[in-house]
């Protein structure tokens, strides 16, 4: 089916009174960014709904998929425009119903006649289309109360728009209306899900990723960027900040007792993240911690690590089970990426038995073995910042060439 446009209806934001305009503009920008890289689209943002004109190419399903993930959208309807004559309208209606039809399904036609000049009345349009469908698809039945397929017909001044599906959107608030924060993104299953949860409440996130070449590979970095690109579908462009961590990890490994390696390492990460957050004017740090999941995520550990900052550390996954987290990861499309087996910063130099209940005083003491301030400053002076768009490919540089083959 070649659709002409997708009609987008707004969600919760409709109730937000005077902020409405900001919200709608923000949602418009987010939609533009989420659809980045798909050429030939035209996005028209109106007060009551948004229209995404399609490019007549192969991208319809992709656009629908992406729009479903953008926060602030209540629902969407892919529609086809035809000229204002009966044959075209009937033909397209039959085609659209056929597209969803399997034996035994019922249908209904709902017509809205905005253009009052149109030669047929609403019920006449219903009949014209209904008859055509009944004739073309033997065995199909009408059911006006509980149809399996509902075909909506809108007669506007510039043509007739038909749609046969209303697809549920992601709800929530448009990203950016809830302020800005940073996110500590590793590459595992949890942190992308935590980012998604933050975005859903309208928070715009910058990703902070620690990398340690040559202990971690180029592929691990590419994977973190790829995850960010997936998340950008929900929030629009994302600033990706990569922090070199090799020197710090080597220093800690050399000078800190084994049982406290992990705790001190996490403190350094949080300290650096906190400095970046502060210096870029953001107001909080998100992470993917869930209480009790691993050694660093006990209450004692969190206290010993959290000790380095007064910046709010937000943990959207705190009380969730791993299975629930995995379910969301699968839904948002990060799971398959997260399970790719590349070493990340958190898994190298892991001692065989990290302290699950580190002592805060001892931690502070051991940390004095390294020069915290200058190591952190040096790392921050060498950060690299990339803007990552939705639908970019960091894992498979040949994807576009291949797309033509497939």
């Amino acid at each position: 089916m070649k659709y002409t446009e997708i009609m987008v209806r707004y969600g919760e934001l409709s109730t937000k009174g005077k902020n409405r305009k900001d919200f709608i503009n923000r949602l418009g920008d987010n939609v533009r960014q989420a659809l980045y890289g798909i050429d030939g689209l035209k996005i028209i943002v109106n007060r009551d709904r948004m229209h995404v004109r399609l490019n007549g190419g192969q991208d319809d399903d992709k656009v629908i998929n992406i729009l479903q993930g953008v926060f602030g959208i209540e629902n969407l309807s892919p529609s086809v425009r035809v000229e204002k004559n009966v044959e075209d309208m009937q033909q397209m209606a039959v085609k659209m119903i056929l597209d969803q039809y399997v034996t035994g399904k019922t249908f209904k036609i709902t017509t809205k006649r905005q253009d009052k000049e149109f030669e047929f009345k609403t019920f006449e349009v219903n009949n014209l289309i209904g008859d055509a469908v009944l004739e073309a698809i033997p065995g199909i039945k009408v059911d006006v109360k509980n149809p399996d397929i509902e075909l909506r017909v809108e007669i506007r001044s510039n043509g007739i728009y038909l749609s046969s599906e209303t697809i549920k959107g992601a709800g929530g608030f448009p990203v950016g209306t809830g302020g800005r924060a940073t996110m500590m993104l590793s590459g595992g299953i949890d942190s992308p899900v935590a980012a998604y949860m933050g975005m859903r409440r309208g928070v715009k996130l910058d990703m902070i990723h620690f990398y340690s070449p040559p202990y971690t590979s180029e592929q691990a970095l590419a994977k973190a960027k790829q995850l960010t690109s997936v998340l950008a579908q929900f929030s629009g462009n994302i600033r990706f900040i990569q922090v070199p961590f090799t020197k710090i990890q080597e220093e800690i490994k050399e000078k800190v007792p084994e049982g406290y390696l992990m705790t001190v390492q996490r403190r350094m990460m949080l300290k650096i993240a906190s400095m970046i957050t502060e210096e870029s004017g953001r107001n909080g740090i998100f992470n993917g911690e869930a209480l009790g999941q691993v050694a660093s995520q006990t209450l004692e550990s969190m206290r010993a690590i959290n000790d380095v900052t007064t910046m709010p550390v937000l943990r959207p996954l705190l009380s969730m089970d791993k299975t629930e987290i995995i379910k969301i990861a699968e839904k948002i499309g990060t799971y398959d990426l997260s399970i790719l087996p590349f070493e990340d910063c958190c898994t190298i130099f892991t001692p065989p038995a990290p302290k699950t209940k580190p002592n805060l005083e001892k931690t502070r003491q051991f940390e004095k073995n390294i020069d915290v301030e200058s190591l952190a400053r040096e790392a921050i002076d060498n950060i690299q910042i990339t803007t990552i768009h939705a639908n970019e490919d960091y894992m498979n540089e040949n994807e576009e060439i291949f797309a033509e083959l497939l």
Partner: protein
Amino acid sequence: MIYFDNSATTKAWPEVIDTYAKVSENVWGNPSSLHKFGDKSFQLLEQSRKQIANLLAVNPDEIYFTSGGTEGDNWVIKGTAIEKSAYGKHLITSEVEHPAVRNSMEQLEKLGFEITYLPVDENGQVQIEDLKAALRPDTILVSIMAVNNEIGTIQPINEIAEVLKAYPKIQFHVDAVQGIAKNIWSQIFNERVDFATFSGHKFHAPRGTGFIYAKRGRKLAPLLTGGGQEKNQRSGTENVPAIAAMAKALRMVLEQENQTSLNERNIKNKIIDHVKQFDKVVIFSKDNEKFAPHILCFAIQGVRGETIVHAFEEYDIYISTTSACSSKKKMASSTLKAMQVPDSISTSAIRISLGEENTMQEADKFIEAFDNLYQEFDRLS
């Protein structure tokens, strides 16, 4: 030429061959090689897998490439037997399966497994009550085809799945070779299906291609061991050009699935409506939703099936006796036999199987030829 034998094989489409040629020429590295050139093949392989998975709305890690339907059937049946023999040695299938299933079962029988062959009704359909009665504590596999290759019956896969929900340990295999791109997907595939077999050359991909769907978490012993390809489940250097070509073919057939199926059904119904008027014609494929749109099997009593096939050949129309696999062996159709059709009639059966390229005009020409031939047959018998 009018080609009405699409269940035997289909023509590889030019666009598909084009991909095959381009990949053979440019992306011929071994996907297992560590270097960049091999990695390119690996990425194309994985992108093909992803495309197929997306088209079928399953996960990419649930798709395993094979050499075709026969391998897929053999793998799921024998692989389950090897994997699960500690839990039980009883398998259930039907009397109307493709030989790839049937003969795999018979081979297992010789190794000490017990097989229950479910009978079918006059439509060639398995009965749920028979399945329920056959289930045992030591049953490890139920293998039922989606669409019968000889007469086109759609088996009640959803009802079987419903029954098997109460038996989560039993693996459920669907031989879906004849079921792809016929607008019956929701009737032949559901959450309870653990394994499904597909063959590329039935949907305009090159010969020697295929894949199985294997649900996450379900276990299957490999039949081909070696270099550990396909996550150690199916060794052998991957046939990347053919796999990419198959991914393209699947996309193409699914893009036109609904239109094609309606067209096929119209052609089938038109021919049924015509031939049913003749006394000696016995039709096995009904024109209702229990049957796939593309297969029509009927007999002209008193004339041998092969005679009919050759007679149509004179009009440049290509049909078959029941299935291509059994037609040269002069065997009566096993499906018709299972339906209790007497040999005297089933040996007169022919099969028309339709595809994406067939038209209503071809149906008219077929009918014209049929009328001429029927007169002759009538005069001679």
